[in-house]
C-alpha cells in the first residue's frame, strides 16, 4: 500500500531515473529513430479517431456504434503511450508512463471483449453483394406485382369504358326507340320500331354475356396450366371449324418445331387459336382465298406464337388502338368485330403475356402472342 501511495504522490516526478538519452548508450541515429517513430505513431493514432468520428457523424445508420466509440478511445490511448515513450528521453516520468500503459491495457481489453461479443452479430450482417441479391429479388417480385396491377388497372379502365359506353349505348337506343314508337301514329312504322327494340335488347344481352365471359377470365387463378401441344390443339380447332375452312377455301400451314409445347391453360390456347384463325377468315382479302401461317418461336426464353394471314389487312394508324377492344355496334349489324380479339387479349393478358399486331392494308395481318412476355421482361 505504501508503494501505491508513493507511486501516485510522485506520479509526475522524474527524480529516480536518468533521462533515457543518458541511460545506456544511444547513438544519435538510434535515439532519433526511436523518438521520431514514436511521435509519428502518436500523431497517426490521434488522427485516426477524428476520421472515425467524421464517419460516425456522417453515417448515422452504422451498426455497432458503441464499438466504434471504444475503438476511438483505444487508439487514442495507444497514441498517448507512444507520446509518453518519446518524452521519457528527456523527462523520465516512468510512474506516469506505467499509469498510461495500464489505462491503455484496460481499454484494450474492454475493446477485445466488446469485439468478441458482437462477433456473431457482425458475422450475420449481410454483405453488400448479398444485400444486392435480396434487393434485386424483391425488386423483381415488386415489378411482377406492379405489372400485374397495371394490367388489372388497364382492364378496369377498359371495363369502365365498356359500362360507360357499350352498355349505355343500347339502353339509350332502347329509350330512343320507345320515344320514336310513342311519337309515331303509323302502325307499320310502330311495328318496325318494335322489332328494332327487340334486337337492341338482344344486343344488350349479348354484350352483357361477353363482358361476363371476359370477367371470368380475370378470375383465372384456378385455370389449370398444363403442357399443351400446339399441334394437338390446332388439330382440334381446325376440326371444330372445318365447315368454315372448307367453304372459305382456307389453307392453314403450321410450323411448331421451334416450340412444340407450352405450359398454358389448354382452353385458352384453343380459344386463342380459334379466334386468330376465324378472325383471319372473317377479314380475308376479297380477291384471294385465305392462307394462314402459324408458327412458334422461342427467343431468349420468350415464347411466341405468330399467326400471319394474306387477308385485307388494316391501317393500324387508324385502327391499331381499337383492335382489341370490345366494340360491337348496336344498329342491327351482324358484324361483331372485336369481340373475339377482345376475349383473346383478355386471356393472353391474364396469363401474363402480350399480343401485338402488324398489318398492311391490302397485304395481310400478323398477330404475335408473347405468352410469357411480362415475366420474361422483368
Amino acid at each position, binding site marked *: 500500500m505504501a508503494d501505491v501511495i508513493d507511486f501516485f504522490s510522485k506520479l509526475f516526478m522524474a527524480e529516480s531515473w536518468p533521462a533515457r538519452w543518458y541511460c545506456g548508450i544511444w547513438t544519435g541515429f538510434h535515439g532519433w529513430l526511436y523518438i521520431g517513430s514514436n511521435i509519428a505513431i502518436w500523431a497517426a493514432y490521434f488522427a485516426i479517431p477524428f476520421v472515425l468520428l467524421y464517419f460516425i457523424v456522417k453515417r448515422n445508420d452504422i451498426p455497432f456504434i458503441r464499438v466504434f466509440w471504444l475503438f476511438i478511445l483505444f487508439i487514442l490511448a495507444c497514441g498517448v503511450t507512444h507520446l509518453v515513450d518519446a518524452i521519457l528521453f528527456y523527462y523520465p516520468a516512468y510512474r506516469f508512463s506505467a499509469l498510461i500503459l495500464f489505462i491503455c491495457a484496460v481499454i484494450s481489453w474492454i475493446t477485445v471483449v466488446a469485439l468478441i461479443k458482437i462477433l456473431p452479430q457482425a458475422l450475420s450482417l449481410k454483405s453488400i453483394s448479398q444485400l444486392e441479391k435480396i434487393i434485386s429479388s424483391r425488386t423483381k417480385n415488386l415489378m411482377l406485382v406492379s405489372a400485374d396491377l397495371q394490367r388489372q388497372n388497364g382492364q378496369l379502365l377498359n371495363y*369502365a*369504358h365498356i359500362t*360507360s*359506353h357499350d352498355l*349505355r*349505348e343500347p*339502353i*339509350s*337506343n332502347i*329509350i*330512343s*326507340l320507345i*320515344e*320514336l314508337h310513342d*311519337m309515331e301514329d303509323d302502325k307499320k312504322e310502330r311495328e318496325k320500331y318494335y322489332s*328494332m327494340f327487340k334486337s*337492341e335488347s338482344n344486343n344488350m344481352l349479348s354484350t352483357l354475356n361477353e363482358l361476363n365471359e371476359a370477367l371470368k377470365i380475370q378470375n383465372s387463378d384456378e385455370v389449370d396450366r398444363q403442357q399443351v401441344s400446339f399441334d394437338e390443339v390446332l388439330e382440334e380447332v381446325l376440326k371444330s371449324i372445318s365447315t368454315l375452312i372448307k367453304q372459305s377455301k382456307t389453307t392453314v400451314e403450321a410450323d411448331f418445331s421451334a416450340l412444340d409445347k407450352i405450359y398454358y391453360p389448354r382452353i385458352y390456347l384453343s380459344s386463342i387459336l380459334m379466334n386468330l384463325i376465324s378472325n383471319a377468315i372473317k377479314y380475308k382479302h376479297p380477291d384471294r382465298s385465305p392462307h394462314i401461317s402459324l408458327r412458334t418461336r422461342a427467343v431468349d426464353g420468350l415464347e411466341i406464337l405468330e399467326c400471319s394471314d394474306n387477308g385485307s389487312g388494316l391501317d393500324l394508324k*387508324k*385502327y391499331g388502338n*381499337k383492335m382489341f377492344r370490345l*366494340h360491337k*355496334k*348496336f*344498329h*342491327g349489324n351482324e358484324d361483331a*368485330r*372485336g369481340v373475339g380479339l377482345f376475349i383473346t387479349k383478355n386471356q393472353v393478358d391474364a396469363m401474363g403475356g402480350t399480343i401485338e399486331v402488324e398489318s398492311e392494308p391490302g397485304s395481310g395481318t400478323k398477330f404475335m402472342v408473347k405468352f410469357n412476355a411480362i415475366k420474361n421482361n422483368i
Partner: protein
Amino acid sequence: MINVAIIDDNMILQMHLKKLFLTYSNIRSINSFTSVEDALEFFKETNEVDKLPDIILLDINFPGLDGWDFLDEFEEIKKNIEKEISIYMISSSIMDSDIEKSKAIELVKGFINKPISSSNLDDIKNFKNN
C-alpha cells in the same frame, strides 16, 4: 335557317334525331354521316357556305377514326372554311375523362349525353323548337 350535320354510326340515333328535327322550325337541312372518314371527306371537298352545316353533332366512338380524330383533322380543315361551325359532342359515354377532354377543345361547344331528348337538345343554341 341552319344546317345540321350528324356524325354517328348509330342508325337508331340518326333516326331519332331526324324525327326530332322535324319539329324544329329553323333547320333547313340535315347531313348524316355514319363514319368519321366519310365526314372528313365531305368537309375537305365542300366549300360552298350554303352546303356546310352550322352545327355538327359528333359521336366519340367509332370502329375506325373516332370523334377525337375528327376534331384533330377538323382544326386544319376549318382554316379553309369561311363559316362559323359549332361542334357538339354526343355520346353514351359518361366517363369524366371524355367530358373533360371535350371541354378542353375550343371547337367543342357542348357535350350531350345519350339518350337524346328534345330537352337536352335545348342546350344547343340556335335550335328553335316550336
